[in-house]
């Protein structure tokens, strides 16, 4: 396979043709944070936390899906990049309960984000949905990374019990017409629980032990 040489943060990196910037950076141990990325799923490129500055590009590019080119010059920690990452984390903190998302809490610390900055004066609390013997769904913790929908659909289980519903800020994960899980095509395979990064989806036992 052809080898590509590029520069990431001033360091020359050699990687196989067809690699993403994220893969190339990881070869050299250069850390780029991600949220919606999952090793075994198709990267949806929607959280934009892994954006980097590429010389010649008008906007920042998501490193998880941007393929390397010969001679590419990439910066992973420019002021534009850092501003975007910090702001994304601050906005997420204002719109979801991240108390069970250790990786995000770590990023918040690393980027010096202020979780209180955009928090609304009156917080809207949504209670957990307990409609079956196995899972608890607590969408107050959901960050809409979409991994649960991915594993429930084409990418793993083919159950098609979950979808992103609504639009814009009011988007949410839902079943068919918002029905309780036992009334849907859910087979309780547990894949969605496995990939949820924020504790929005949890096995029931663990949840009950919590209370």
């Amino acid at each position, binding site marked *: 396979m052809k080898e590509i040489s590029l520069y990431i943060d001033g360091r020359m990196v050699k990687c196989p043709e067809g690699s993403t910037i994220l893969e190339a950076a990881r070869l050299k141990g250069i850390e780029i944070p991600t949220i919606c990325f999952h090793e075994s799923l198709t990267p949806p490129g929607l959280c934009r936390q892994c954006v980097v500055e590429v010389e010649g590009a008008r906007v920042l590019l998501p490193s998880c899906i941007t393929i390397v080119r010969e001679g590419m010059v990439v910066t992973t920690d420019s002021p534009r990049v850092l501003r975007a990452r910090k702001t994304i984390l601050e*906005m997420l903190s204002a719109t979801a309960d991240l108390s069970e998302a250790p990786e995000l809490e770590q990023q918040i610390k690393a980027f010096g984000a202020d979780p209180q900055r955009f928090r609304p004066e009156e917080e809207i609390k949504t209670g957990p949905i307990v409609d079956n013997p196995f899972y608890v769904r607590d969408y107050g913790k959901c960050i809409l990374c979409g991994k649960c929908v991915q594993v429930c659909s084409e990418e793993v289980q083919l159950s*098609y019990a979950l979808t*992103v519903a609504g639009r814009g800020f009011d*988007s949410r994960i839902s079943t068919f017409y918002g029905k309780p899980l036992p009334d849907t095509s859910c087979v309780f395979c547990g894949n969605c629980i496995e990939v949820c990064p924020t504790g929005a989806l949890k096995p029931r036992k663990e949840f009950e032990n919590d209370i």
Partner: protein
Amino acid sequence: MDSISLKPLEAFLESFEDKSRTSLLPALLKAQELFRYIPEEAAMLISEKLKVPPVHIYGVIDFYSLLHTEPVEQHHIQVCVSPVCSSRGSHKIVEALKGVEGDRRVSVEAVHCLGLCTNPPSALVNNRPVCRINADKIDELIEGKGAPPVNSSRSSHPVLTGRFASDKGKSLKSYRESGGFSGLEKALSMERGDVIDLVKNSGLLGRGGAAFPTGLKEESSARDGNSEVFIICNADESEPGTFKDRILIQKDPFSILEGMIITAYAVGSRKGYIYIRGEYASEQDRFSRVIKEAEEKNLLGEGIMGSDLNFHVEIRSGAGAYICGEETALFESIEGNRGFPRNKPPYPVNSGLFGKPTDINNVETFSYISHILSSEGTDSADLPSASGTRLFCLSGDIKRPGLYELPFGTPLSEVIYQWGGGILNEGGLGSIILGGASGSFVPPDLYDIPLDNQSLKKAGLSMGSGVIMVFDDSRPFLSILNDITSFFNHESCGKCYPCRMGTRLNHEIISRIRKEGARNGDLEKLQDIGMTMKDASLCGLGQTAATAVLSAISLEPDLFKAEVS
């Protein structure tokens, strides 16, 4: 719940040639029309016939504003609340309609721009446009009474609007008598590559907003004629303040179709779509009659005009989602999905609709292509700029709002004062927005700027879809911004983080500042959110959704700073 009969829906589903997911949106729109919402049973029937998982159907219904999971009243009024209509009191009308009780109860929806900006405020009463509506005449509005839309237009160099005054675009007969389809005839006599070169050399840039070279797009999407290539006309006109495409469809629709057929020949396409926004019901009717007439006269179909060109055009209706004007979201919508934009690359010319090469252009762009090919077009040497004329949508507090076709390079102030007659009621000029809700406030020292892409780009501005919204000095900046941020809050698709959260927080902050004044840190918050959206959003909507706010900050920073006590 009363039991419903699924029979008419079933018959409709049987009529589809293609019983697959691409027929989902037409099926859902039909169900909405039949039942005034989409009952679960209807969704299940559609699922079974089109082989789409039920949960995906729910996700699609819940995405589009014109589709509902609960019944809506028979009598349905959509009132425009985008900046121009809002400044003329449309919010009051929404409130008044909501207060109507008893038999006269209507379902009311505040919507953002119906392309009826020249006689504000405007509404659709059961899909029929009604203009100059008034909160004091609610009963008349409910009955659908009011002024009809006036589609006034003027031009110094009529090309696109050349058939408007004499109404020569009315029928296929009058269209042909005024030189229509001579462009296609000429194209068919040329080599395909030469047609592309002609469009390339014309310097035509896309008129939807991004101003990408049209000929280059044609060249990159062209294939040998043996593999599939799609042509799409983007008529999802929804940028607040834009009404040019609606008027073009009404006044010269055959020129749009001709442009599509010429392009089909050039790139080797056999199938085209025109995606018209769901709120443009009468434009959809108009264009479907145009297609029918063209098919009858062998201008569409097999062996067009005796050549070996085979080309068919299908109309697709939007279902209430601004984002579907973004090209890849539009593909998703035709494919039967939520209107989520795709990450690029791949670009549409390589992998667009159904993963095939696709040449997608705006309505005005296709119409212009017909004039480039036609021998009847204005000689470009007569124009001050080689790239010709374009349509400007002038609205707001202006004496003569309307559609103006003017050469590129016409100074902004000339459009407003000479063509538009200046500010209404002898008021003072307050602010100008160029490019629609995703455009900018123009700094006062640039009011004389020539409206051409290079000058605007240099000044950090863009004319987008040709929108010029003018406000007098009684319209507070923050009210206009409130309408704009409310629009984006409603229309962000919610796929990527910067736009999903940024549009909501922007609106929350602006509406709070408007009510209570700014607090410490507001300006920095708006800048961080705005720059993150601009730099990191997935699509063009998200990247420009904060442009107006950022431009307002640079013009009037004090508005966003806490008062020093």
